[in-house]
């Protein structure tokens, strides 16, 4: 422990930041806690899937291996959108006025493209949620993720509007930091889901 006693002369009184600056804002800590609990949710989802697969006698996976012609490019699109947000956020610190809205805007558009492609992916599946247990898991887990993408896109749109309104400068941009870490989280989760549904069937 620091040798900190409370005698007045020992307290270093220096100018301190006020309010919500970047990673010192309460919201930054709050979003990290939220991500911990959301990550747990996806761990439990994938646990349920693998548990059920492991304990099922006989066939569990669909007979045809999954087609990755839509989901693979979709994965790349999601990763690119993370890069776009990161680029926009870096722009704030470099005092750029146009980079934040452009980066965030591109990310939001890519997020929407991801959702549209996912909708086609869903429509192309030969099974529906009630077909069998695998199908129930497929639609539930990818559906949970899509719901998070929808929320992430809405957050990005809010950040886009706020950055156009001039709410952020190089010292006040906590909402961008908070929103972008959430977006990165949603993207990382997709990698686990992609691996689970599109890669593991090829490993067997």
């Amino acid at each position: 422990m620091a040798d900190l006693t409370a005698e007045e002369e020992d307290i270093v009184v220096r100018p301190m930041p006020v309010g919500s600056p970047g990673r010192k804002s309460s919201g930054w800590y709050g979003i990290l806690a939220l991500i911990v609990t959301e990550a747990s949710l996806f761990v439990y989802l994938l646990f349920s899937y693998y548990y059920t697969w492991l304990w099922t006698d006989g066939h569990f996976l669909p007979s045809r291996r999954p087609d990755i012609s839509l989901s693979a490019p979709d994965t790349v699109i999601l990763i690119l959108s993370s890069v776009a947000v990161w680029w926009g956020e870096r722009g704030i610190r470099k005092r750029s006025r146009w980079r934040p809205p452009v980066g965030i805007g591109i990310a939001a558009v890519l997020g929407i493209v991801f959702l549209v492609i996912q909708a086609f992916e869903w429509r192309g599946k030969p099974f529906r949620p009630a077909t069998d247990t695998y199908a129930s898991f497929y639609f539930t887990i990818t559906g949970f993720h899509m719901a998070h993408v929808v929320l992430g896109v809405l957050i990005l749109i809010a950040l886009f509007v706020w950055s156009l309104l001039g709410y952020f400068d190089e010292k006040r941009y906590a909402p961008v930091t908070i929103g972008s870490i959430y977006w990165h989280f949603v993207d990382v989760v997709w990698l686990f889901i992609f691996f689970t549904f599109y890669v593991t069937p090829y490993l067997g």
Partner: protein
Amino acid sequence: MSAADYEQMPEIRSLADDPGLPDRLKEIWETRPGLYGFIASVDHKEIGIKYLVTAFAFLVLGGLEALLMRIQLAQPGEHVLTPEQYDELFSMHGITMIFLYALPILSGFSNYLFPLVLGSRDMAFPRLNAFSYWVYLAAGLFMYASFLVGAVPNDGWFNYAPFSLKAYDPGPNMDFYALGMIFLGISTTGGAVNFVITVLRLRAPGMSINRIPILVWGTTTISVGILLSVPAVSLAFFLLWMDRQFGTHFYDARTGGQPLLWQHLFWLFAHPWVYIIVLPAMGLVSDALPITCRRPLVGYTLVVLGTVLTMALGFGVWVHHMFATGLPLVASSFFSGASFIITIPSAIAVFAWIATIWTGRPVFTTAFHYFAGFIVMFVIGGVSGVMTASVPADLQLTDTYFIVAHLHYVLIGINLFGVLGALYFWFPKMSGRMMDETLGRIGFWVTFIGFNIAFFPMHLTGLMGMPRRVYTYPADAGWSEVNLISTLGSFLLAIGILLVLVNIVRGLRNGEIAGPNPWDAPTLEWSIPSPPPPYNFALIPAIASRHPLWESRLQEGSGRSMLDRGFVLDHGKETLATSIIDAEPDIILKMPDDSPWPFITTLVMCALFTSLLVRSPVATALAGILTLLCILAWLWPKRRLLQIARPRHG
């Protein structure tokens, strides 16, 4: 706007320099009176008391349900309740006590006490705090609304699939429970985030992590546990609801589902939950008991480590609820071993308390009585827990009244008795008045004796083979006498609780004035008036030891805490954030004003969950969009909170 907005030089003053400060702070921090203030207040003290009152009301409801069941079981072959009503009552009794009473009452204490013992002016997220409370209330009412439509949850709080699937339970009963629990999970999660971040950030300068009171350690530990475990149960209920409403195949073995998946997800959550609803109560006792023994707690560091270790190991014992489900012997043996090991960290506190009493000079207040009773029952409930951790014994005892006895010794012993002791102990701080000690001690003995008469015989009832969850039993089974004794005991216990309520009312009306520190206690909450002013601390103190008000007696540490001088922070609603480990001043936080949005968002979410219950897609979409809009309005950056950049010039 000037550049000074981004940075500020904090001032350190004493009240003698600035006698007008308390009035200025009161003006800034006080909640408006009236209905709007009631709805919009973000004051942690008001929210804490709302939690306490609501949780106590649910305790009374759950208790009445229990009394009805005990009347039914008083004699063999009774017909007070139908089997269906009995199922509904034992389900709602469990749901109420475990989810709507046991944690929320502890959240109430923690909400009230956290900023006071940490030396802060509020919680880290005051609006989220209000939201957590309103969602808790709404989720509780949502589940109780099932009584209005005559479709009360009826498969027990454990709610095993496939029993709870639509084929076997076609009404909306379990949908109330499933959606209600998902709704409640939002409140629990929000509360946990708030506790964790408050501890990390909002401690007084100098309150390094080895100076944090144990009650804070308890609640913080379980809050991390909540963040990791609540998603499991929310997911379990969501999958159940999907199975029931949309024909998915998660739990139904006939269509490829896994019924045991429910049990895994449920107990992955629900065993940690057992520690979640006792560790904060143990924390309250660890802080208050030493004060009634006139000495510091013995073994502070060990108790803290024991608390954290118990929670961590608590995630590795869930399968001991499933020994009878036909799992491989290796799995059962592993989890049995883990269940034996967890007794070690969880018993550390017991030895610390006994040593504290032994080496202290106990003052036999009502609170001390409850704490002593708490220790006795912890030992009994702990020993019967060790018995059931053994696989062969468990195969014999599971689903009998022995388990009912065990879990009530744990939950009433380690939760309710700690809570009642804490109530007698902190009531003077909350109300400014004392509760009556004589009536308090009579109430304690009635509660203690009533509880033991009700539940101790159940060990025997279980060993004699009476199964749980049956609505009646035949006269020749030999269970009649023990059941009658339990019923008589349960009514005595109810009278004891009634005496506590009487004492509360009496104390509020004409209890003796308490003053700031009636127990001569050492921690920060006792350095301010009772009840505390809206801003808690006129000057944010700086801490040099674990017992700031006992320093001159204990000669602890090298320096002296600074209580009469401190950080002023009066440019609007402000409090101090400090660094995580050493608690050095870090930044000045702007705190939000009272806000109606948490309440409005809760109302809209009520509509959302009701739409899901009746499966109306249009209403669900509408309520969902409204919920998002409410959250947007709530989170819109505010210039007053310095969340927005100052306008650019040139």
